[in-house]
């Protein structure tokens, strides 16, 4: 039984690919578009570029993007009796929950790779920055991918519960906004409570933004990955329990 394999088939001809490609490229480019128009150089090279693309993107567009992906993935299940059919099969609730979250997490990871690639292309070809994107930002990019997973689990859960496309996206927008505010106040423990805070914090890694020290150290990376793993486990367990107990609504 291969629940993830079944989910991958559903991605064929899916609108989610358009989101995966267009969202990160558009957002990263729009982050530096004013600098481009003015024709001024980037004050601090790669560092400034990363701030304008990835840190901005991590404040709320990333969470909203994952929310849109989750709503798109779940929309197919809420149509007709697909959800009945899935729940009338031998696939366990845990496997269903994990398969959905994994596919959304995977799309979020591809989105992240494209965002970083776009940043590098911008830096090298458009701004003609010397050297290459600093190594600590590549580490940060991997941490961001891990931190996307609890957001994927939460958004998958919300989209499972709500047939509405927009409602879970609105939750992500508000949740990411509140979480960003908490990080501005340097309330770092928020990363253990809100997955939106975890992923935002990850995008700030190594940039001295808000609570960040500007250095990518082992303990900081471990803290963010730890928070991501704990939140993922807790949210997956809760989602599975709700799915296992509740009645299937169609």
């Amino acid at each position: 039984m291969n629940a993830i394999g079944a989910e991958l088939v559903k991605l064929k001809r899916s609108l989610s690919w358009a989101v995966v490609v267009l969202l990160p490229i558009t957002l990263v480019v729009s982050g530096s578009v004013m600098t481009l128009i003015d024709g001024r150089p980037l004050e601090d090279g790669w560092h400034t570029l990363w701030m304008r693309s990835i840190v901005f993107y991590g404040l709320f567009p990333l969470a909203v993007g994952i929310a849109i992906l989750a709503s798109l993935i779940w929309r197919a299940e809420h149509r007709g009796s697909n959800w009945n059919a899935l729940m009338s099969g031998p696939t366990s609730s845990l496997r269903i929950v994990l398969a959905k979250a994994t596919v959304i997490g995977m799309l979020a990871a591809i989105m992240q790779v494209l965002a970083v690639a776009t940043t590098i292309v911008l830096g090298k070809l458009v701004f003609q920055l010397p050297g290459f994107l600093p190594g600590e930002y590549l580490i940060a990019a991997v941490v961001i991918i891990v931190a996307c997973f609890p957001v994927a689990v939460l958004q998958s859960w919300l989209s499972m519960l709500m047939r509405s496309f927009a409602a879970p996206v609105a939750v992500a927008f508000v949740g990411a906004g509140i979480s960003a505010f908490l990080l501005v106040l340097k309330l770092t423990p928020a990363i253990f409570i809100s997955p939106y805070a975890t992923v935002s914090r990850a995008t700030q890694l190594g940039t001295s933004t808000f609570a960040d020290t500007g250095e990518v150290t082992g303990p900081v990376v471990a803290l963010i990955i730890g928070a991501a793993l704990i939140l993922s486990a807790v949210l997956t367990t809760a989602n599975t329990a709700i799915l296992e107990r509740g009645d299937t609504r169609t």
Partner: protein
Amino acid sequence: MSLVVSTEKLTKSYGSRTVVQDLDLRIPEGCVYGFLGPNGSGKSTTMKMLLSLIRPSNGQVQIMGRPMNRSTRRELLGKIGSLIESPPGYGHLTGRENMRITQRLLGLNDQQIDFAVRTVRMQNQMDKKVREFSLGMKQRLGIAMALARQPRLLILDEPTNGLDPAGIEEIRDLLRRLAEGGITVMVSSHLLGEIDKTATMLGILSQGQMIFQGTRDQLFSAATPDVLIDCTHPSRAQQLFARHHQTTLENSTLRLPGADDRTTAGVVAALVSEGIGVYGVRRDEQTLEQIFMSLTAGGGL
């Protein structure tokens, strides 16, 4: 005869509204069980409880001799094929891709998928997107998805809904073939004629309660059909019984409702003693519709 499905006092209520009440279903192995009732009588709710899609408020479900509940459902569901409410299928995918999802979820081999697709005669339509399928094709694909796991029990909720007469006949024929192959089939409908010729066992649901369960013959004997009498002087005969029986005259045939064999004999004797020649006494043939109406006491279909 072993039972594939049995329920004890199965009940589902939402707040103070009871949708299904004290249902004791008995579905013997290898039969086609026709589950009849008007729209909103609780058929889908009952089927969803059998699949543990929704939890009963009260009572129990036994499938293949084992209790069906949240801890056993995933194991039992591997042997139950089902189609609940509308047919499933991802519109943006082709028939083949939809079957591949079923194959991966259930861990089936290519032969099992091929067999299911051929059984519903869809092998030439599989490269079309499901969005472009007709309703009949969607129903057949849905049945193929349910069949691919080679189930012992097939639960189909209104599989003929919205189909044209040819499509209905095809589904009927399919159900008969499946039952001959040893699969127990439970099929619901609000149209009695659709099930009449296929089902070997019948359960009739009205407002969440079972008002009849048994074979087709038992159903017909449960309601006494009218006695029709042809005689030489029908109008005089009607006047004769007007005080005791609710007789009516139809094309010079006397219709006598609710008469058992003794009453019928008495009526014939009385007619003869009055000098009226009796040359025809028979029971009216009843359709399932008429029986259903009499069982539900005129409740609309």
